[in-house]
């Protein structure tokens, strides 16, 4: 469909833009301002120029946290997207059963993140949680003070929490594929595998980019679930960027440093998001 050119349509976008300007653009300006100053008690500003940026970029800790955060996002995406598609492929397409499984997929998405963290903290506890008791009974290696165990638990919690999003999005797409496509493929004698790669996957492409974008954004922002389950430990092995930013700002009151690392972080995310956005709009045409 070709769209009409009409510049006055801008007025329709005004309310949304104004709202976002207030809640998003103004605070971002303030963050930029903080990042160039040394801030005392929230209202004494001393100009320090690029000092905080140099501190952050030269800090091993910042790069470590950034690396861990990306690793986390990549690991959860690598599990959730294929798993979500696979589950969606096996869901019944019609009737009450279908509705039931759709509701199952949606439920974890509506649980406050703090509660998700609480649930998994309980589940993984070695003395009272079913997973913890079972796993520590089977192997001595199960120990939340062990980096690998801690990572496995937080990744499992993330999969539990978010795989439903991929299931919902893929399922909605699969249901919308006309029966005729399947019948044609069947008449051609296509295998189930061929149907997936030539009929279903091309249609899923767009929705998977959306899922990837959303999971990447939220995976990189992850805060309360790992914080609840492992408190960022052992050591700093499950401390991610959001937790680091909040700690720098609230506990150490380094507004300047927190703002500078926040902006570097945001710049990286925007670049990534822009790339994905371009891929997505390119697949539109």
């Amino acid at each position, binding site marked *: 469909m070709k769209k*009409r050119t009409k510049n006055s*349509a801008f007025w*329709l*976008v005004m*309310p*949304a*833009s104004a*709202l*976002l300007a*207030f*809640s*998003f653009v103004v*605070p*971002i300006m303030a*963050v930029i301002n*903080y990042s160039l100053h040394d801030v005392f008690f929230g209202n004494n500003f001393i100009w320090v120029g690029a000092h905080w940026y140099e501190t952050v970029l030269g800090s091993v800790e910042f790069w470590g946290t950034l690396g861990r955060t990306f690793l986390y996002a990549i690991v959860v995406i690598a599990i959730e997207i294929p798993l979500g598609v696979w*589950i969606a*492929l096996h*869901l*019944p397409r019609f009737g009450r059963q279908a*509705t*039931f499984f759709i*509701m199952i997929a949606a*439920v974890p*998405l*509506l*649980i*406050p*993140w*703090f509660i998700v963290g*609480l*649930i998994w903290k*309980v*589940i993984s506890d070695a003395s*009272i949680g*079913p997973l913890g008791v079972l796993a520590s009974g089977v192997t001595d290696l199960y120990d939340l003070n062990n980096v690998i165990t801690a990572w496995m638990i937080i990744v499992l919690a993330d999969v*539990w929490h978010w795989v439903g999003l991929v*299931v*919902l999005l893929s399922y*909605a*797409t699969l249901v*919308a*594929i006309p*029966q005729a496509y*399947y*019948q044609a493929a069947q008449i051609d004698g296509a295998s189930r595998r061929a149907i997936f790669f030539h009929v279903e996957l091309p*249609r899923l492409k*767009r*929705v998977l980019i959306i899922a990837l974008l959303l999971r990447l*954004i939220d995976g990189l922002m992850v*805060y*309360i679930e790992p914080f609840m389950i492992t408190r960022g430990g052992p050591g700093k092995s499950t401390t991610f960027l*959001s937790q680091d*930013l*909040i700690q720098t700002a609230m506990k150490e009151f380094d507004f300047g440093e927190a*703002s500078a690392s926040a902006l570097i972080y*945001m710049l990286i*995310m925007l670049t990534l*998001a822009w790339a994905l956005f371009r891929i997505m*709009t390119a697949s539109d045409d």
Partner: protein
Amino acid sequence: MIKAFKPYRQRPVIPLVYAIFVFLPLYWLVIISFMTQDEATSGLSFFPKNPTVNNYLYILTDPGWTLGFVNAAIYSGLNVLLSLAVAIPAAYAFSRYQFLGDKHLFFWFLASRMTPSAVLFLPLIQLYSEVGLMDKVLGVALAHCMFTVPVAVWILEGFFKQIPPEIDETSKIDGRGWISFAVKILIPVAAPGIGVAAFFCFMASWVELILANALTTTEAKPIVAVLFRAGGPLGFVHLPILCAAGVLTIIPGLGLVYFVRHYLATGLSMGRVKRM
């Protein structure tokens, strides 16, 4: 007649295993909420020995906690209304017209969704203190618009594109003004899409902790922040009470999922997702 080909794989065990995987952790949350502190912390159990509703009574009779639920419900609802009110015209404009800077604006909407709350909460505290929105449910609702408006615009834009533009023209010929067009034609036609958008807005606002906690002090504290204070990562203060509160925070979500259950699949497929 051609026998309908069953496009999905005939292995019902997979959805079943998935459903159990989702259910089990919730089951433990529920059973612990009916236990006493001693029983909950003494070891693994599969069912409460002496089920008690004291934990729920404690929460429901303490105004600090009940107020938390009311606050969260109010700002989530307010957020849905605000987001839809600004997102419907914006999505309509994006779906129908080309205008100066439309692509850039669309991307900046998404950029707002991508910004971590951890980046913005400090300046938001300062800004809201200046304009008197600190510790107000309206303040939290406005702050949450940062990530709900972009998502709502995105979902709705997909839906409006599916509606043939002829509808707009017929309405114009009928002599309808734009308010009449929006209320009598556009919104009813796009109802499933608006339902899905409302679902995503409510979801985002209800589950959020960082901004909701940072922008409130006493009056407007939501339940998640009350819980965070009472039983943050530093330990189980009173585990069964936390679990009971957890169960209570899940109930509105369950209700919402139930109400939009028919829209979730068809709704999503009609919208953004279908245009591939």
